[in-house]
């Protein structure tokens, strides 16, 4: 059997094989499942005088339920590039992991630091191939040899390049804060303050966002991942003694005991078990 050394590129794009069946099911009244884990989300990014600051909330929802109170939405792409993800959590994780791996290979082959536009192109071409079915809305930011960059990427594969950006269900709340307070040449502390305010605005005004604020500051040659930089939603009224449920706490109404009869058959002179 020939295993030729010819490289056959993988067939891209979505497989539409099941679409007819889905239509038939919908016509027969079956509702599609809606409770996969989404990140309701507020994610933001802005460019300040020394680089880029990214911010995100930490709530992951499954319909009306909070599935993860402290998830990580700022994903590592390269030592100098990070990416916030909104949309279906599995999609954002998978697509950022995949592109991060491709960037690592690219760095080995070229011997150079990765560029933000490289990550951008890899992400947008993958999302375009899947025609929007990979539900990942991303805010990509980083600093490379050509300077600081900030981009937004939509699930269908279009991109924007902006000085400040927000995505997710809390994007309007966060954008309101940015639009009124953003200016060029912010310092590091001002930038972190503004990003935290924007995320908090999303946390308090959008149901899909909540819990804590994560911040990531990227400058030339240096990055700081401030996990849980702000925790504006602490658990109050936690009993310091802890909770113990002693026997007698619950009232026993009835008791019924059913003894199990043991049936043991002893066979004399049976074959020994094969070892």
């Amino acid at each position, binding site marked *: 059997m*020939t*295993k*030729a*050394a010819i490289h056959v590129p993988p067939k891209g794009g979505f497989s539409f094989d099941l679409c007819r069946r889905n239509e038939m099911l919908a016509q027969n009244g079956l509702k599609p499942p809606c409770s996969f884990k989404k990140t309701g989300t507020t994610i933001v990014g802005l460019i300040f005088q020394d680089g880029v600051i990214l911010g995100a909330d930490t709530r992951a929802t499954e319909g009306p339920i909070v599935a993860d109170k402290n998830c990580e939405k700022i994903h590592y792409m390269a030592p100098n590039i990070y990416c916030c993800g909104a949309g279906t959590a599995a999609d954002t994780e998978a697509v950022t*992991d*995949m592109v991060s*791996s491709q960037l*690592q*290979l690219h760095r*080995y*082959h070229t011997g150079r630091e990765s560029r933000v536009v490289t990550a951008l192109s890899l992400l947008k071409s993958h999302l375009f191939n899947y025609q929007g079915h990979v539900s990942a809305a991303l805010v990509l930011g980083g600093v490379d040899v050509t300077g600081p960059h900030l981009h937004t990427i939509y699930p269908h594969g279009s991109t924007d390049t902006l000085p400040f950006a927000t995505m997710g269900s809390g994007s309007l709340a966060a954008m309101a804060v940015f639009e009124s307070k953003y200016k060029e040449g912010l310092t590091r502390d001002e930038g972190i303050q503004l990003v935290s305010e924007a995320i908090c605005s999303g946390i308090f005004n959008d149901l899909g966002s909540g819990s804590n604020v994560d911040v990531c500051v990227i400058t030339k040659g240096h990055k700081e991942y401030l996990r849980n930089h702000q925790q504006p939603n602490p658990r109050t009224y936690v009993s310091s003694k802890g909770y113990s449920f002693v026997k007698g706490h619950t009232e026993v109404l009835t008791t019924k005991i059913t003894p199990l009869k043991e049936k043991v058959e002893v066979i004399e002179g049976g074959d020994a078990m094969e070892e």
Partner: protein
Amino acid sequence: MGDSQYSFSLTTFSPSGKLVQIEYALMAVGSGQTSLGIKAANGVVIATEKKLPSILVDETSVQKIQHLTPNIGVVYSGMGPDFRVLVRKSRKQAQQYHRLYKEQIPVTQLVRETAAVMQEFTQSGGVRPFGVSLLVAGFDADGPQLYQVDPSGSYFSWKASAMGKNVSNAKSFLEKRYTDDMELDDAVHTAILTLKEGFEGQISSKNIEIGIIGTDKNFRVLTPSEIEDYLGEVE
């Protein structure tokens, strides 16, 4: 010789039970530039000659020692282009392992997968074996490790090994000098002395390459100035 009738087809055994193409591939390795590796108690060093075909060649553009992962490096003896192909494949395999298991690939696993690729090319139609032997140096949870992979796809773990033109002299030199409790610095000195043994011409920081990995688990190629320092110490 009866074998010669079987020497052109890769996928046919000779009467003596050898695959002659693989023997020839090993000869290609044996005529390549000398490379060697030494496993110390706290790290691994690999080194090679870097003889360029002419003084006009820009030696900074040539790098024979390559990274496969942050904690695994590799050097070769034999055909450079074949080495490039293997390095690309190995890097991709390491990335795929990481994507699947979310951990850095252990040295043994990477060596096994690279060897499997080399073996594929000895049992397929229309291809030839790789004309390189690799020395893979890595440091992971099992400590420092040094592996040699041959064109046939067989691999061995070594405490110290050499390949290429000067292999027999280098190996006997290493056998005499190797001790189990060597430190990484001593290993680098021994590597330089071993290269010097069979070196034609004057050894300098421009015509050898050295890669080391220590307990920091970060493989790196030494800069020419660092090699100068080591050469000075050895004199």
